[in-house]
């Protein structure tokens, strides 16, 4: 069936992967002190973990975004609607607020990551499962409730920030801004493991994604247990986003850009290809963005700002160019 289109898309993905390789190489080897072996090693030691962190993040956000859009059946949403960003900010603010910026949580990255992941995972699972039942699997209502809760979290967070000591706040601010520095291999390893488990548990549902794009009625007609499938996939998406956020900070707006770029490039309903495209675009943008930040702007602007501004413009473009939502 339509093999030609499938093959064209595979070729496109291959080219995209090549670009990713090029960008990654540029990131690793640009101004890497080739002459001096010790400096070169030092640069590698800094850059390789960062690169790995970016690739993992791109994988988490790229995959989650495509799946999320397909569940909601709408391509102008991002999983940042799930409220993980504000939950993350609330957790960090609350900890600094309660025990100060010198506590174990604020200093030890591994502890912070574990706490983030567990809190976000548990909260999201409990809240979303509960509201799924309550709304009788009306996914849009669940989302709306999610956004209500996330604005509640920001209200609480702002209230804490207002009464916080400015020095403590400065320490907090660096945690609240997405960054790829200082992510150790244990955290990355754990992230990969968590994501692998999620994929393994959801392997059946992931295969159903193609059918689910036909809409609820058609999917049920073709034998999909729709409600259950949506619920499980949404929880998977939430966990993926939680992993990415806990690892690097609030960044999930990226998903809007890369998922849509992938859809525009590939114009297919096959989720295998769509996800691959989205992940590759994510890698390219993150690594390329970081390259810019480090080499051109010499670290004055965080990469998340690029994503926010670029993503914002792209979002407006999407709104303008679409016929329906």
């Amino acid at each position, binding site marked *: 069936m339509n093999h030609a289109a499938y093959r064209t898309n595979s070729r496109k993905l291959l080219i995209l992967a090549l670009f990713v390789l090029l960008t990654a190489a540029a990131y690793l080897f640009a101004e890497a002190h080739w002459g001096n072996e010790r400096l070169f090693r030092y640069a590698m030691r800094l850059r390789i973990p960062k690169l790995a962190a970016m690739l993992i993040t791109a994988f988490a956000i790229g995959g989650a975004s495509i799946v999320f859009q397909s569940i909601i059946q*709408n391509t*102008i*949403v*991002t999983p*940042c*609607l799930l409220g993980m960003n504000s939950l993350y900010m609330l957790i960090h603010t609350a900890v600094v607020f309660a025990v100060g910026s010198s506590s174990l949580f604020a200093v030890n990255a591994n502890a912070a990551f574990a706490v983030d992941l567990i809190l976000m995972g548990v909260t999201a699972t409990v809240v979303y499962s509960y509201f799924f039942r*309550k*709304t*009788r699997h*009306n996914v*849009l*209502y669940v*989302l*709306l*409730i999610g*956004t*209500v*809760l996330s*604005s*509640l979290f920001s*209200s*609480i967070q*702002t*209230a804490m*920030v*207002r009464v*916080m000591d*400015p020095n403590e*706040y400065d320490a907090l*601010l660096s945690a609240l*801004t997405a960054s790829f520095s200082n992510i150790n291999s244990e955290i990355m390893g754990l992230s990969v493991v968590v994501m692998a488990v999620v994929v393994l548990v959801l392997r059946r549902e992931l295969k159903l994604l193609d059918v689910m794009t036909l809409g*609820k*009625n058609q999917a049920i007609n073709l034998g999909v247990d729709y409600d259950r499938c949506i619920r499980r996939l949404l929880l998977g998406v939430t966990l993926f986003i939680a992993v990415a956020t806990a690892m690097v900070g609030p960044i999930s*707006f990226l998903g*809007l850009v890369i998922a849509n770029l992938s859809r525009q490039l590939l114009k297919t309903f096959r989720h295998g290809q769509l996800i691959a495209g989205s992940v590759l675009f994510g890698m390219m943008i993150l690594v390329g963005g970081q390259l810019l930040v480090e080499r051109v702007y010499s670290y004055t*602007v*965080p990469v998340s*700002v690029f994503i*926010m*501004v670029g*993503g*914002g413009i792209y*979002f*407006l473009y999407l*709104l*303008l160019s*679409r*016929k*329906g*939502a």
Partner: protein
Amino acid sequence: MKHKVKGGAVIKERKMTIVLAVCLVILSVLSLFVGVMDLTVKELVAGNMEQMEILLLSRLPRLLAVLCTGVGMSVAGLIMQQLCRNKFVSPTTGATISSAQLGILLALLFLPGSNLMGRAVFAFAAAILGTWLFVWFIQRIPFRDVVMVPLVGIMFSNVIGGVTSYLAYKYEMTQALSSWLAGHFSLILKGRYEMVYLVVPLVILAFLFANHFNIVGMGKDFSENLGISYSLVLFMGLTIAAMITASVVVVVGSVPYIGLIVPNVVAMFKGDRIRGTLADTALFGAVFVLSCDLLGRVVIAPYELPIDLVAGILGSVLFIGLLLYRLKHGERAICWKARIAGGKEEGVQ
């Protein structure tokens, strides 16, 4: 139909309005006497100057600001919902509040010496532009589901908020901005809040044009047929809503959910015509914000919780409750206009 209603029935029809008005008066008086310093009627009557000063310089301004906020935000929400034909649109879920915040930040950055007036001008301009832009977008796109509109609105606000936080980050104003933008009444003193009175003429304007908003809410063809310029009324209504919101944001900060919840709660009791519900919406908004304010002042006295937090907590709980209630007792109430306009996706008889 109204002229047929007899005297007793008028009172019955207005029962809710009367109850709300009485509540408001009681709460207002109560609010004047709650605070760190104890005020008593006896001392005031006796002419205790110190107590009089507190009353006039602090308590009364605060009460007036609270009332303006409640009335203003809920009326702004009602207008926006009516004009956009969507029960989920409001200054929070539209882009109005976030645009006004961006405006304030721009004023702080580019006119560092500016007074309240300067900030207000920036906030007005930004809020109006942001709201227009948002409504222009959502009118261009046929939405298949009503809930998509607020979701897009929230993403839209996220984008604007992103720009704001980038600028704040760059100029190291994040914390200052947080305290500027989160709503609180604790800094309301005579001489620093009068801007919020702008709400009063704007709300009166809204009352005068209530019927126009109603008609425009029925759709473009409907209003043109009745000889009302759709675009003109739409833009005017949005401008009024945006200006109300901006004047509240400048003085008080953002107070979430009022514009979203209050009109919805009133509509549950009274139906959806804007003319009949405007007064009740305004009164209920005032009662709601005043209750939140009182609660915030009492819970951890002598400190106080910011209104942003109290309204945020109460509002989200109420809103989720409202959502679930409507989901259970029929979506019709919430989707009424969208059904007429677009029809539901799955046409179940």
